[in-house]
């Protein structure tokens, strides 16, 4: 039998985790054992898992700190909503409309990623971080003044107000500036969300374990050395950035089509930071860690309900304590000793068995 490589096994474990997660919650759902607040969290969990995994491609694999990932989510969300609204009377099947909307969301976000990536990726370190932050804010600000409507003649776009769209009487306003997109048809389902997670994992894991992925990691580890080996730095950095943006766009469309209204303010700096927190807590460069951290931390504020007003305070304290425990040298030593004590015994047993 052909031996399965380590990376491939790790990828299959990730698919397995997602499938098990889906099956468990699908059973719980059909048995009616989930509270309504929790079942409402299922699609956001999938969305944030995609966001975390795609951001990890930029932060962990490509090694560039991005603070504007929510901007791509926003682009995807609103373009996806517009697409869904346009297709409402054209395409009958709702699953086809969902796929088209997700694809348009991903494409628009990829386009935004390309436009933003060209200037951003020329910068380094903290300067790169601040420019991604700036782009995130620009996207939010522009979407805040964007008005889109549709009538018999097609799409109408304006940056002034809903009146200046100049639509006919049967026209519908899809995006209404700071009020966001209203009256969205709920197309996203838990199953489709899980399928999207699997697709995103497939794309990113295959990218990471391919020739391009190795080039991206080489650039992260030492840009100059990689360049001297003939790796086209800009090309590979762009690949990672644009793929990540496209995935975020699809996630945004999925997220938006789960609610009846979405406002541009939802995708602000704090959301970008939230996703970065998932990535860092899950382990930089570790896709499985990002998935788990995103799922756990999306549910955690719900679980902390019993602390009522104190829950965000508790969340902040948990965040600080976890960061200190996992990064402080003294705390790390204590952990290592505990691990050695536990693993040492098992390891010893395994050795004697062999």
């Amino acid at each position, binding site marked *: 039998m052909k031996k399965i490589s380590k990376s491939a096994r790790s990828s299959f474990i990730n698919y397995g985790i997602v499938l098990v997660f889906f099956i468990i919650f699908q059973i719980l759902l059909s048995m009616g054992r989930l509270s309504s607040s929790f079942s409402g969290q299922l699609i956001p969990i999938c969305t944030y898992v995609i966001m975390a995994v795609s951001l990890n491609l930029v*932060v962990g694999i490509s090694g560039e*700190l991005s603070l504007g990932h929510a901007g791509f989510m926003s682009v995807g969300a609103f373009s996806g909503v517009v697409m869904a609204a346009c297709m409402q009377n054209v395409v009958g099947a709702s699953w086809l409309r969902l796929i088209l909307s997700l694809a348009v969301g991903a494409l628009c976000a990829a386009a935004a990623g390309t436009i933003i990536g060209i*200037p951003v990726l*020329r*910068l*380094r370190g*903290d*300067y790169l*971080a*601040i*420019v991604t*932050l*700036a*782009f995130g*804010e*620009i996207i939010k*600000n*522009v979407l*805040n*003044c964007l008005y889109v409507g549709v009538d018999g003649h097609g799409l109408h776009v304006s940056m002034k107000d809903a009146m200046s769209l100049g639509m006919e009487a049967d026209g519908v306003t899809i995006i209404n500036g700071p009020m966001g997109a209203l009256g969205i048809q709920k197309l996203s389902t838990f199953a489709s969300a899980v399928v999207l997670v699997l697709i995103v994992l497939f794309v990113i894991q295959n990218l990471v374990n391919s020739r391009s992925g190795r080039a991206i990691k080489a650039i992260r580890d030492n840009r*100059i*050395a990689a360049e001297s080996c003939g790796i086209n730095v800009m090309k590979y950095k762009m690949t990672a950035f644009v793929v990540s943006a496209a995935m975020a766009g699809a996630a945004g469309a999925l997220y938006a089509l789960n609610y009846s209204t979405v406002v541009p303010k939802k995708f602000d*700096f704090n959301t970008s*930071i939230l996703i*970065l*927190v998932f990535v*860092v*807590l899950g382990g*930089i460069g570790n896709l499985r860690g990002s998935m788990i951290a995103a799922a756990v931390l999306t549910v955690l504020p719900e679980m902390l309900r019993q602390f009522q*007003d*104190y829950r*965000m*305070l508790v*969340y*902040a*304290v948990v*965040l*600080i304590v976890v*960061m*200190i425990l*996992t*990064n*402080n*040298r*003294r*705390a790390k030593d204590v952990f290592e000793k505990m691990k050695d004590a536990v693993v040492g015994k098992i390891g010893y047993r395994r050795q004697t068995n062999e």
Partner: protein
Amino acid sequence: MLNYLVNGISLGSVYAIIALGYTMVYGIAKMLNFAHGDIIMVGGYVSFCATSYLGLPVIPSVLLSVFVCTVLGIVIERLAYKPLRAATSLAVLITAIGVSYFLQNAALLIWSSNPKAYPNMVALPPLVIGDTQISAVSLVTTAACIVIMVVLTLFTNKTKLGKAMRAVSEDKDAAQLMGINVNATISLTFAIGSGLAAIAGVLLCSAYPTLMPTTGAMPGIKAFTAAVFGGIGSIPGAMLGGILLGIIEIFGKAYISTQLSDAIVFSVLILILLVKPTGLLGKKISEKV
């Protein structure tokens, strides 16, 4: 026209004072202190309580808020950042974000989310030149900014402590070998930065008199942008960046679009960074292989 310029300079002065805190901390600890914006908010609330509830006069209440923020800055540094001296910058960044969440939510619990109407701390008549009126707040803000700038420059260049700060930011290990107490120096930097944030809080809220737990967030991000604009780590750079940013923001609002003013500010930042990748007054980073 002149009016806009004055408003721009005064808003920019507030950004500059906040940016100084960012830049000093970045210079010495190489970390992006995202909690800095929330210290501004704490400064605002403390001075608000001192005047409204305790009935203190203006100057003692400002001093009280500077004192509280300075202590807060030192405590945060000791508890949250000091254990992470050797950690990666991303870990420190996330911790700073945790601190920022903590401060915002603590403020939410203590003072509730209802916006408070901030009393004008600078109750002086406006200065009238010809047909333009310059409010006292603008004048005081600009003056405070200039004074702080001069004092800080003198401090870092002439005093022993200031030299120690520069030495630590240059090379921590070498500084330690020269007998400089690195930890104390870093604490001092946080103390100064936080004290400045308190002053900025008072000035910001006097000019824009609504106080909420999220008041500090946006000015914090803008001031951070200003620090990068001028070249992060450089004190004159923070000053220049702050004032330019303020002027661009006010002129953008006045002549181009009110709603898009933030987008304009950030676009200018991006353009500047494309031409000068380390900011206006930033040092060039040379890479060794």
